[in-house]
C-alpha cells in the first residue's frame, strides 16, 4: 500500500508540469484584454489579390473591437505572409505557433499552401478556421482543430451540377476543364452529382492553361449540341472558350463556370455582352457585389481600410469571422482553446448575412458551408440565383 502511495505521489509530482503545461497551452495567446489570431495569407506575390479576403476578415475584427470586443477582449490579428508558397507558408505557420504563440489561426488563401500546412497545424492542435482556400483535403479527413468556413470545392462542384440540372429538360451535359487538381476539385463533385441524378456527361474535354484557341473543343461540342456545358477553366481560358463558342454559333448554350471566375470580369475580358449572356458562375454571396445586401460589408471594409479596392475576394472570409465571434461569445469569458473548438462544433445553420449558405460545424463534419448560389445575367443584369430562373 505504501509502495502504491509512493508511486501515486511520484506520478502526481511528475505529471504536474504536464498539467500545468496543458493549462498554459489552453490559454496561450490569450490575455485579459486580447485574443491573438494568426492570419496567414498571400500578402505579396502573384496571388496577392487573394489577400483581399483577409483584409475583409480583419476589417470585421476591427468592427468587433470597435464595439467592445468579445467579453472585453480585442481580436488582435498577427499577420504573416505566405506569398501563396508552401515553404513560406510553413515558415509562417511555425512562427505564428511557436514564436508568436497565437491563440488560434484564421485565414489562408491558396489551397496548395493550406494543404501543406495541415499536418503541422493538426499536430500543434490550436484551432484553425480556413477562411478562403477551398480544397477539400484541408479539412477532410476530419481533424479536431481544423474548421472550413467557406464552401469547399466539393460543395461548389455539386452546386454547379445542381444548378445545371435545375434547368428544365437538361439531360445532355458536357464538361470542359483543365487537367489540374483545381479543375478536378470542381468537376469531380459535379460529375458525381450528375451521375447520382442519372446523367452521364456526354462529352468530356480538356483545355489546358495558356491555350489561345478552343476551336477543336468547340467543334466537338457543336457536334454533340449539349443542353449545358460545365466549364472548370481559369479566367483567361474561360474568356477564350466563350469567345470561340460564340464565334462558331453556339453562344446560346448555357455555360456553368467555377468560383474562380466572375461575371463582371468575364464580361470585361470578352468585351461583349452577347458572349457572356449565357454564362453562369458560382457566387458564394447573398447579393451582387454592388447590391444592397453587400453594401454594408463594403462600407465596413472601407471604414477600416479606406484605400482598399473591393473585389469578389474581399467578402469571402467575413462569414467565418462572424461564426468565430459567435462561438467566442458562446464560450464566455473563461476561454480556452478546447472550449472554443467545442463551441465551434455547436455552430448550426449560422446565417452570416453575407454567404449564400449557412455555416454548420458538427463533431463529425468540419466543412461548414455545403452549398453556394449562382450568378448569371437575367435581363442583362447580373443576378444571384438559387436555381435556374429563381432569383436568390
Amino acid at each position, binding site marked *: 500500500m505504501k509502495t502504491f502511495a509512493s508511486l501515486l505521489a511520484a506520478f502526481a509530482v511528475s505529471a504536474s508540469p504536464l498539467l500545468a503545461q496543458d493549462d498554459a497551452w489552453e490559454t496561450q495567446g490569450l490575455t485579459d484584454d486580447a485574443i491573438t489570431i494568426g492570419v496567414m495569407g498571400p500578402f505579396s506575390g*502573384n*496571388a*496577392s*489579390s487573394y489577400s483581399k479576403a483577409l483584409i475583409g476578415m480583419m476589417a470585421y475584427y476591427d468592427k468587433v473591437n470597435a464595439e467592445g470586443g468579445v467579453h472585453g477582449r480585442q481580436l488582435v490579428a498577427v499577420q504573416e505572409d505566405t506569398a501563396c508558397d508552401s515553404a513560406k507558408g510553413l515558415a509562417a505557420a511555425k512562427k505564428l505557433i511557436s514564436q508568436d504563440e497565437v491563440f488560434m489561426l484564421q485565414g489562408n488563401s491558396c489551397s496548395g499552401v493550406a494543404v501543406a500546412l495541415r499536418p503541422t497545424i493538426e499536430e500543434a492542435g490550436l484551432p484553425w478556421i480556413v477562411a478562403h482556400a477551398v480544397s477539400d483535403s484541408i479539412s477532410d479527413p476530419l481533424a479536431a482543430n481544423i474548421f472550413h468556413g467557406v464552401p469547399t470545392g466539393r460543395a461548389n462542384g455539386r452546386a454547379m451540377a445542381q444548378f445545371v440540372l435545375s434547368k428544365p429538360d437538361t439531360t445532355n451535359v458536357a464538361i*470542359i476543364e483543365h*487537367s489540374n487538381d483545381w479543375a478536378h476539385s470542381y468537376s469531380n463533385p459535379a460529375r458525381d452529382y450528375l451521375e447520382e441524378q442519372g446523367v452521364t456527361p456526354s462529352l468530356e*474535354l*480538356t*483545355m*489546358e492553361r*495558356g*491555350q*489561345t*484557341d478552343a*476551336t*477543336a*473543343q468547340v*467543334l*466537338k461540342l457543336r*457536334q454533340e449540341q449539349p443542353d449545358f456545358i460545365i466549364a472548370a477553366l481559369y*479566367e*483567361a481560358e474561360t*474568356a*477564350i472558350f466563350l*469567345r470561340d463558342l460564340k*464565334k*462558331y*454559333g453556339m453562344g446560346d448554350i448555357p455555360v456553368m463556370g467555377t468560383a474562380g471566375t466572375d461575371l463582371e470580369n468575364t464580361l*470585361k*475580358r*470578352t*468585351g*461583349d455582352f452577347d458572349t457572356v449572356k449565357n454564362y453562369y458562375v458560382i457566387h458564394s454571396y447573398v447579393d451582387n457585389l454592388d447590391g444592397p445586401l453587400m453594401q454594408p460589408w463594403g462600407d465596413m471594409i472601407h471604414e477600416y481600410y479606406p484605400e482598399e479596392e473591393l473585389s469578389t475576394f474581399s467578402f469571402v472570409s467575413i462569414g467565418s469571422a462572424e461564426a468565430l465571434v459567435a462561438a467566442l461569445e458562446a464560450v464566455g469569458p473563461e476561454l480556452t482553446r478546447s472550449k472554443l473548438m467545442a463551441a465551434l462544433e455547436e455552430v448550426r445553420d449560422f446565417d452570416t448575412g453575407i454567404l449564400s449558405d449557412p455555416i454548420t460545424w458538427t463533431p463529425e463534419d468540419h466543412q461548414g458551408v455545403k452549398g453556394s448560389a449562382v450568378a448569371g445575367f437575367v435581363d442583362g443584369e447580373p443576378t444571384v440565383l438559387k436555381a435556374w430562373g429563381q432569383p436568390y
Partner: protein
Amino acid sequence: MLMQLTLGGLSQGMIYALIALSLTVVYRSTTVVNFGHGDFVMAGAFLSYVLVVLAGVAFLPAAVLAMIAMFVLGVLFNRGLIRPVRGGPHIGLALMCIAAGYVLRGIARMVWGREVLPMPAVFDMQPIFLGNLVITGDAVFIIGTVLVLLLILFGLLAMTDLGKMIQAVYQSPRGARLIGLNVDRFNDFSWGIGAALGALGGILVAPVSLLHPDLGASFLIKGFAAMTLGGFGSLGGAVLGGVLLGLAEQYAGAYLDSALIEITAYVVIVAVLFIRPQGLFGRKAVVKV
C-alpha cells in the same frame, strides 16, 4: 468538321510559323537559340495593347509602331548583351536570353500583375457561314497578314541584292566578312528582325486571345517545335513546320483527345528528333575529321 479544323489550324499555324521564323532568322545568322523569345512575343503584344487601349492609337499603326519598337529592342539587346559575351561558352548566350526574357516578363508583371487583359476585337467582321464552315474575321486577317509578310520576306531574299547578301552571310559569315560585308551590323539587323517578327506573332494573337505576362512561354515551345519539324536553320521549313503544327494540334484535339492539343508540340519535338533529326528541310550535320 475537317474543313473547320483546317481553317483553325492554319490560323494558329500561321502564328507559330511567324514565331518559328523569327527564331530561325536569329539562329541562322548568329547560331544563338533565343530562349527568351517567348517574352519578346509577349512584349510585342503588350506594346500594341498599350498603344491601342491606353494611347488610343488605331490597331494597324499601333502594330507597326510596336514592331519598330521591338526591332530597336532586338538590336539593342544584341549590341548591349549578346555581343559582349559572344566569345564565351554557348550556355552563357542561352542564359543571357533567358534572363532578358524574364526581365521583360518581370516588367509586365510589375505593371499589370497577373491581370488578364483583353485586347479589343480588331477583325470585327461578321463570320461567313458556308454550310457548316465558319470563316471568321480573325482567321482571315491572321492568315492574310502572315501570307503577305512571308511573300515580301521570301521575295526579298530571293530576288534582291540585299537578299543575296543576307544569304551570303547565312552561308559563311567569315566569307561575307572577307568580301567587306559588315557582319556585326547584319547580326544586329537579324536580332531586330527576329524581335519584330516575334512581336508581330504576339500582336496578331492578342485580339483573339488575352494578354498576360506569361503569354510567351507556350509560344516559345510551339516555335521550337515548328523549328524542329521544319529543320533547324531553314526559313521555309520553319514556316511549314508552324503550319503543320497548327493543323496537327487541331486534328489531334478533335479526332483523338482534346488533352493532346497541349502536348502536340512536345510529341512533335520528340518524334522528329528520333525519326528525322534534321527535320523536313534541315541539312544533316556532317562532321569532317
